[in-house]
């Protein structure tokens, strides 16, 4: 199957080269399909393109910081991301280039990538499986439609993507957080081990484990062949990593796709519409604009995957209007543009840890601790449905602690030169229920500079999430006290959807077209050669970081599309 079908420019066309699109590209190219990958982002070459990688603070013109004036002008939302700084700025979108509207006075902190590779370059790399409990949750409590798949449908695909991506982690045997194919975990430090022992004794239903992260600690031959190497514990990932120490499209899936000779990767390609052909009842291709030249092009393909990131995907689908589908291609139900989810964070506790002055660490560990969900698993509550996990870590305070403290002169220098006191932090990340009102739509009055109707977002946390957030603060506090710390500071700060950068939903999977957009194969119910495998396809959010699930869904859907193409159904 090396020749493209005569009538099409490509066998497979993928919109987006991030976490999901990269996987589809790899899978389809390796199966012999001529594949186009279109990405709105500017090119970013793995290695040589990482301009600020490895630079010391004093080598940066602004010592790592972006001017407040520039932030106010261009990066109002991007700058809210924890990873935004002078090193990484070039990987984030200028919000001023791509406006959107926050409707009904509801703030949404939409963080977007400006580059090929998408947010796979910028992610936090925590990699967790969803569990059987997560796939059953909607059906059990009636919030959101039933997932059309169960854990067993995805289990082998999790194995598959973990083996290729490279996930470091420990096997724990927890039903709510299934074990996977792991490389050696990062170490916990002595303070963390001590806290783990004490907290798990005080709360037998709660575990503190090392975060499972997409970092190579024992690279396989397959990973080495792709030019990847072990993580160097620099923890400067989002500036780019020439080692390919962490998984990204640029380090892993796109090189794998490219070495087949079947991939055509097109940067600066803003897809505005998937075109529907009423005669064949299929998508015929996409209309795109080259944002550097303004040239408009139609590209045809047998099969189209939209993996442009949750909200961009839905924006394109809603904008794909035809006589048959005036509300967007394949859209005959109530799901497209609705049931937007993120996670909720912003509450937890911090502690100062006495003792352990004689131990320190070398290296900047690129992952943290993880507390798998215990609420409504091992410990029931009536206060809210579902639950949350936590991230945290113990580390020693650095020179930055001196900024707000008194002290000058030689004494200050001597004090700062020694490792500071140990601190421990825990923060919750909670599941957000799928609600119809949390939605996006196209503006009828405003377009961006390329003529695309801008997105209007109306999304807010509900009572369930806010009660959960309260609980995160309380349980984090009691766990740090159980660890023996006397100086514990609980906190809960205002936060808005979007900021966890786990947008999901708005084109969800389900059993039927009236309340979902995609079937159990991430295939549009009404347009058989149209697939969506990014976060838009998610039917519920669980509380785990979702990227690993996007990867597994993408690989699984690609394999299904291949079967269908070979069978002549597509």
């Amino acid at each position, binding site marked *: 199957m090396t020749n493209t079908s005569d009538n099409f420019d490509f066998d497979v066309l993928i919109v987006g080269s991030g976490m999901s699109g990269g996987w589809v590209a790899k899978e389809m190219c390796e199966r012999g399909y001529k594949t186009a990958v279109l990405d709105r982002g*500017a*090119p*970013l*070459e*793995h290695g*040589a393109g990482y301009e600020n*990688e*490895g*630079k*010391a*603070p*004093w080598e940066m*013109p*602004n010592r790592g910081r972006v*001017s*407040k004036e520039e932030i*106010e002008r261009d990066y109002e939302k991007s700058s809210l991301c924890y990873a935004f700084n002078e090193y990484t700025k*070039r990987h984030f979108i200028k919000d001023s280039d791509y406006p959107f509207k926050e409707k009904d006075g509801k703030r949404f902190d939409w963080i977007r990538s400006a580059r*090929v590779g998408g947010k796979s370059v910028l992610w936090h790399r925590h990699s967790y499986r969803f569990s059987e409990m997560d796939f059953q949750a909607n059906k059990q409590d009636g919030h959101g439609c039933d997932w059309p798949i169960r854990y067993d449908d995805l289990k082998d695909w999790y194995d598959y993507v973990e083996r290729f991506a490279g996930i470091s982690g420990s096997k724990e045997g927890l039903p709510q957080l299934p074990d996977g194919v792991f490389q050696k975990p*990062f*170490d916990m430090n002595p303070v963390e081990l001590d806290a783990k022992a004490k907290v798990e004794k005080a709360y037998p239903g709660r575990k503190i484990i090392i975060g499972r992260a997409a970092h190579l600690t024992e690279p396989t031959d397959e990973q*080495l*062949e*792709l*030019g990847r*190497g072990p*993580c*160097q*514990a*620099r923890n400067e990932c989002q500036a780019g990593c*020439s*080692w390919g120490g962490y998984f990204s499209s*640029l380090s892993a899936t*796109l090189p794998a796709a*490219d070495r087949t000779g079947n*991939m055509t990767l097109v*940067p600066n390609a803003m897809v505005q519409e998937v075109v529907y052909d009423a005669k064949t009842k299929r998508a015929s291709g996409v209309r795109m604009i080259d944002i550097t030249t303004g040239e408009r092009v139609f590209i045809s393909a047998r099969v189209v995957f939209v993996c442009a990131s949750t909200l961009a995907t839905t924006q394109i689908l809603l904008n794909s209007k035809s006589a048959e589908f005036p509300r967007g291609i394949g859209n005959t139900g109530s799901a497209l543009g609705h049931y937007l989810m993120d996670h909720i964070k912003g509450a937890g506790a911090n502690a100062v840890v006495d003792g352990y*002055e*004689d*131990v*320190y660490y*070398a*290296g*900047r560990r690129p992952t943290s601790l993880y507390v798998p969900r215990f609420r409504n698993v091992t410990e029931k509550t009536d206060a809210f449905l579902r639950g949350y996990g936590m991230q945290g870590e113990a580390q020693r305070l*650095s*020179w930055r602690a*001196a900024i*707000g403290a*008194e*002290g*000058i*002169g*030689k004494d*200050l*220098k001597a004090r*700062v*030169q*020694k*490792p*500071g006191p140990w601190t421990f932090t825990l923060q919750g990340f909670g599941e957000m229920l799928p609600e119809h009102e949390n939605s996006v739509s196209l503006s009828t009055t405003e377009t961006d500079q390329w003529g695309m109707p801008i997105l209007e977002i109306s999304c807010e946390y509900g009572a369930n999430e806010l009660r959960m957030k309260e609980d995160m603060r309380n349980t984090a506090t009691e766990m740090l006290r159980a660890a023996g710390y006397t100086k514990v500071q609980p906190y809960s700060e205002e936060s808005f959807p979007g900021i966890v950068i786990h947008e999901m939903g708005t084109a969800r999977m389900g059993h039927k077209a009236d309340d979902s957009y995609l079937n159990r194969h991430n295939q549009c119910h009404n347009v058989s050669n149209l697939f969506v495998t990014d976060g838009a396809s998610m039917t519920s959010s669980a509380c785990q970081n979702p990227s690993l699930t996007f990867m597994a869904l993408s690989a699984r859907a690609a394999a299904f599309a291949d079967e269908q193409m070979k069978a002549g159904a597509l």
Partner: protein
Amino acid sequence: MLDRRQILVGVAALMGGALLPASVKALHGSGSVGAFRKATLSEPQMKAITIMADIIIPETDTPGASGAGVPAFIRTAMANWLLKEEAQAFVDGLDGFLEAHPDFPRQDITAQTNLIAGIDSSLHDLPEKYRFYRQLKELVLIGYYTSEVGAAEELAYDPVPGGYTIIPVTSETKAWST
């Protein structure tokens, strides 16, 4: 010091180099930082800043603030970090200080240090006239500990740790700067 970029390039080559094809190797943006705006600090202001910075971070067995280029860094930060209003508030505060203490630049180091130590001791409750000092101290500390002197001589800096390990603290152990 070793050149980190060379280390990276060297290791990347050992690992088989960057493998992405020509199709990915299109142009990327320069990503250059905009030209610095003109500094807004006068010579007398810079002199006072230098004196204060060296009192906060003096020379010991490693250079102090001015030896690490902190005053020049503050000039840059004024132009490139702060909003105009914040920079103006800082300059106004500094001017107010110099009006209230016109002899400060000519005093001996003991008198200068006593004055700054007194202000610093009320860092959390600074009177209006000394409020600029909080901004100054923040800029001095950031400027110093992100400089090569502060980050890699006074503190410890390792661009490529290679792994995360637990180490004992000895009398020689310095805190990491990053």
